[in-house]
C-alpha cells in the first residue's frame, strides 16, 4: 500500500532539547501499533522556525499544524487524526484571538517571514524570463506604461511608504520626485549593487535569484522620472550575479521589454552594467557616480545632490537593489497593501543576512518591526552550541552592536538609530559568549580604516588613531583615558567627515563603549579578555595535576612548543606559544588552562 500521510516532527536544534526525539519515537510506535506502517511515514525535519511554540508536528498532505506537542500526545495524534481523520483540536495552533487555526495556511504568517523582495528567489529559474513573467513579472511595467502617468507611479510609491534599503532610509518617492522635478534633457537611474560590507550578501542573492525584478523596477523608475538610461553598478567579485543579469538583459531586449519602444508603448529605456573594483567607498553614491564616469571613486561634497546634478551633471537617482526589488510588487499589489506591512515609519520588509553564532544562518526577510528576539530565536533557531547570547552586530562597519537588552526592540530605521546602530544594508552578525566585543569592534575598525579613501582628515587620521588605541587595549596596554579619547575622536568624526564612511566608522566603538563598557574595563584594568580572543591577554598553561601525559597536545601544537615525556605532565614554552588554542581544543582531560 502506498503512503498517504506524512508526519513531520521538527528536529531543529531548538526543539531537540524539548523532547522532539521522544515525540518522534512515540509517533513511530503508535503508527506501528495502529497498523499504519505502510501508510504513514514519520520523519524528522529541519527547523520550522517557530521554536517559541515548539515542538511542532505537521501532518502532510493536509498541512495540519500541531504546536507545543508533548511526547504523550503522539498516541492521540495517531489514533484520532491518522486513523479516524479527526484533527486533535486542542493541539492545533491558536491565533491571537483564540481561533483555532487548522492548517499553517490559516496561521497568519506563522513563519514570521514575508517574502516580497525574495518572492521569486528559490522558486523560479533566474535564467528563464518566462518563469518570471508567469509569476506576475513585468505586470507592474505593463500597468505603469499603459495605465499610469509618471506622477501616478510616484504617488503609488509614496503611498507605499518605501524607504531606501541601502542604509540611510531616504523616502524613495521623494528621491524620485527631486530627480524628476529637475529640468534636464537627460536623466539617469542607477542601481547600487556594490554591496561590500562584511557579512552582507542580500543584494547578491537577490540578483542571482531574481535579476528581472531589478530590471523591471529600474524601467519603472525610468518611466516615473523621465529617464531613458540606467546603470547597474556591481562589484566584479559577484560573477554569478553579473552573469545572470547579463542573461536577463539579453532576454529582455530580445523580447522588447527593454530598449526602444517597450511593448509598443513609445517608451525607451536601456540598462548598462558597470563593474566596480571592490572599494567599499564606491558604494557611496557620489563616489559611485565618479567611478561610473571613469574617475577615481572618491566622495564629493553634497549638495549638490545627485538628484540635481549627478552622473555627467544630469539629474540622477540612485537606489539600492533591494529598494528596487520591492517596486514591481508595490505597483501590482498597490501602495496600500505594502504600507499595511511594517511599522508606522518603516513600511514593508527587510532582508537580513543572518550569520555568526546562530543555528540557522541564512537570508531572512521579515516585516519591519519584527524584534531581534524573533529573528535570533524563532527564525535563527537560537545560539549555536547552546552558548549564551551576547549581542547582535547590525549594519556592518557603519553599525553598532545591540545588547541583550535590545532583543525586544522592534527593528526599524528609527529604533536602530536610537540605540546607536543603523539598519545599514542588512548584515546581522550574532555574537555569543565566546566572542570578545573589543576584538569584534577592532575587526570592523580595521575594515573601515583600510577602506577609507583618505580624502578628508577626520576619517583618515581619526580612524587610524582609533585603531591604534583599540590595538593598545587588546594588548593590555590601554588606560581609562583611552575610552574618553575614543569617544571624543568618534564624535568629531561623526560630525566632520565628508562622507558617511568616516561618519559611521566610530559607530561600533561608540555603541560598545556604551553597552559593553565592563568588557573594555576588564581589558584595561584587569588585563583580561574573558572570551580568550585577545591573544596578548591570554596564556595557555598545563595543569600538572590533571595532565596524564597523553602527548596529544604536543602533537597538535603548530609550533611544537609543548614538551614532556609520555605519561608525565607536559609543559608549554610560553616564549614560543602563539596562542592558537589548538592544545586547549585537543586535550580531553581539561588539563589546559586558559587564563
Amino acid at each position, binding site marked *: 500500500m502506498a503512503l498517504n500521510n506524512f508526519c513531520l516532527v521538527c528536529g531543529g536544534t531548538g526543539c531537540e532539547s524539548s523532547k522532539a526525539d521522544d515525540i518522534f519515537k512515540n509517533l513511530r510506535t503508535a503508527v506501528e501499533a495502529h497498523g499504519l506502517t505502510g501508510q504513514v511515514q514519520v*520523519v524528522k525535519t529541519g527547523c520550522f522556525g517557530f521554536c517559541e511554540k515548539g515542538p511542532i508536528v505537521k501532518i502532510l498532505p493536509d498541512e495540519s499544524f500541531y504546536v507545543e506537542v508533548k511526547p504523550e500526545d503522539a498516541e492521540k495524534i495517531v489514533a484520532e487524526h491518522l486513523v479516524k481523520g479527526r484533527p486533535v483540536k486542542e493541539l492545533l495552533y491558536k491565533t491571537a484571538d483564540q481561533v483555532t487555526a487548522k492548517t499553517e*495556511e490559516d496561521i497568519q504568517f506563522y513563519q514570521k517571514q514575508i517574502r516580497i523582495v*525574495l518572492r521569486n528567489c*528559490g522558486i523560479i529559474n533566474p535564467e528563464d524570463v518566462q518563469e518570471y*513573467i508567469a509569476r506576475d513579472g*513585468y505586470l507592474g511595467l505593463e500597468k505603469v506604461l499603459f495605465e499610469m502617468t509618471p506622477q501616478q507611479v510616484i504617488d503609488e510609491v509614496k503611498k507605499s511608504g518605501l524607504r531606501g534599503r541601502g542604509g540611510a532610509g531616504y523616502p524613495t518617492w521623494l528621491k524620485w520626485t527631486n530627480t524628476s522635478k529637475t529640468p534636464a534633457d537627460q536623466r539617469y537611474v542607477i542601481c547600487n549593487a556594490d554591496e561590500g560590507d562584511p557579512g552582507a550578501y542580500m543584494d547578491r542573492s537577490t540578483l542571482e535569484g*531574481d535579476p528581472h525584478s531589478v530590471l523591471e523596477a529600474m524601467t519603472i523608475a525610468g518611466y516615473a522620472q523621465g529617464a531613458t538610461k540606467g546603470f547597474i553598478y556591481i562589484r566584479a567579485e559577484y560573477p554569478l550575479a553579473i552573469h545572470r543579469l547579463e542573461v536577463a538583459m539579453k532576454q529582455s531586449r530580445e523580447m522588447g521589454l527593454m530598449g526602444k519602444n517597450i*511593448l509598443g508603448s513609445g517608451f525607451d529605456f536601456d540598462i548598462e552594467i558597470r563593474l566596480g573594483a571592490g572599494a567599499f567607498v564606491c558604494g557611496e553614491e557620489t563616489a559611485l557616480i565618479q567611478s561610473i564616469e571613469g574617475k577615481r571613486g572618491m566622495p564629493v561634497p553634497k549638495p549638490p545632490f545627485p538628484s540635481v546634478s549627478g552622473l555627467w551633471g544630469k539629474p540622477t537617482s540612485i537606489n539600492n537593489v533591494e529598494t528596487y526589488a520591492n517596486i514591481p510588487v508595490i505597483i501590482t499589489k498597490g501602495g496600500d497593501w505594502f504600507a499595511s506591512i511594517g511599522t508606522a515609519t518603516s513600511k514593508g520588509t527587510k532582508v537580513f543576512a543572518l550569520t555568526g553564532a546562530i543555528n540557522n544562518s541564512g537570508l531572512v526577510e521579515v516585516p519591519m518591526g519584527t524584534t531581534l528576539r524573533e529573528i535570533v530565536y524563532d527564525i535563527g533557531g537560537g545560539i549555536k552550541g547552546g552558548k549564551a547570547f551576547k549581542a547582535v552586530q547590525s549594519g556592518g562597519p557603519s553599525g553598532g552592536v545591540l545588547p541583550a537588552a535590545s532583543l525586544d526592540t522592534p527593528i526599524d530605521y528609527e529604533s536602530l538609530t536610537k540605540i546607536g546602530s543603523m539598519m545599514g544594508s542588512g548584515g546581522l552578525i550574532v555574537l555569543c559568549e565566546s566572542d570578545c566585543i573589543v576584538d569584534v569592534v577592532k575587526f570592523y575598525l580595521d575594515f573601515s580604516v583600510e577602506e577609507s579613501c583618505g580624502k578628508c582628515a577626520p576619517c583618515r587620521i581619526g580612524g587610524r588613531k582609533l585603531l591604534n588605541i583599540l590595538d593598545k587595549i587588546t594588548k593590555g596596554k590601554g588606560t581609562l583615558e583611552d575610552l574618553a579619547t575614543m569617544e571624543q575622536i568618534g564624535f568629531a568624526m561623526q560630525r566632520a567627515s565628508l562622507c558617511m564612511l568616516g561618519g559611521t566608522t566610530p559607530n561600533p566603538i561608540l555603541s560598545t563603549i556604551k553597552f559593553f563598557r565592563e568588557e573594555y574595563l576588564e581589558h584595561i584594568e584587569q588585563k583580561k579578555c574573558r572570551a580568550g580572543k585577545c591573544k596578548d591577554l591570554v596564556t595557555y598553561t598545563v595543569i600538572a595535576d590533571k595532565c596524564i601525559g597523553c602527548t596529544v597536545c604536543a602533537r597538535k601544537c603548530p609550533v611544537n612548543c609543548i614538551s614532556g615525556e609520555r605519561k608525565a605532565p607536559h609543559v608549554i614554552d610560553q616564549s614560543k606559544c602563539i596562542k592558537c588554542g589548538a592544545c586547549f581544543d585537543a586535550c580531553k582531560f581539561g588539563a589546559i588552562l586558559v587564563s
Partner: protein
Amino acid sequence: MTLQELRAMREAGQKAMDRRVGGDKSIEIIVGMGTCGIAAGAKETLDAFVNELNSKDIRNVVIKQVGCMGFCHSEPTVEIRMDGMPDIIYGNVDPETARKIVHSHILEKKLVDKHVFDRPSKDIVKEK
C-alpha cells in the same frame, strides 16, 4: 513583443505552473544554485541527480536551477514537486542524499528522513 503577447505568455506560464496540481505526471527537481549553494556543493548534487536519473532510466523529470532559498545553513537545498506527494524542500543534499531522494522520494514515494525543511514563508505572488 506586444502587450498581447506578454499577457498570453504570462497566462500560459501560469497554467504550466498550476498544471502539476491537476495531476500532470512530470516531476520537478529544483536545485538552489546561488553562490552559497554552489559553494556548498550544489553542482555535485546536480550531477548526482542527473547521473542517478540516467542510470535508473527515469525520464519524466525536469531539473531546474533556482536562486538561494535562504537556508544557507543547510545548503545545498533541493525542492521536489511531483504528483502524489506534497511539495518538499530538502536541505543538506549531498550526492549521497540526492541518490536517496531519487530512490526513496521519487520511486518509492517516501520522504527522506532528517533532510526535510519547511518553506520559510507564504507565497505573496499566488495570494491575490
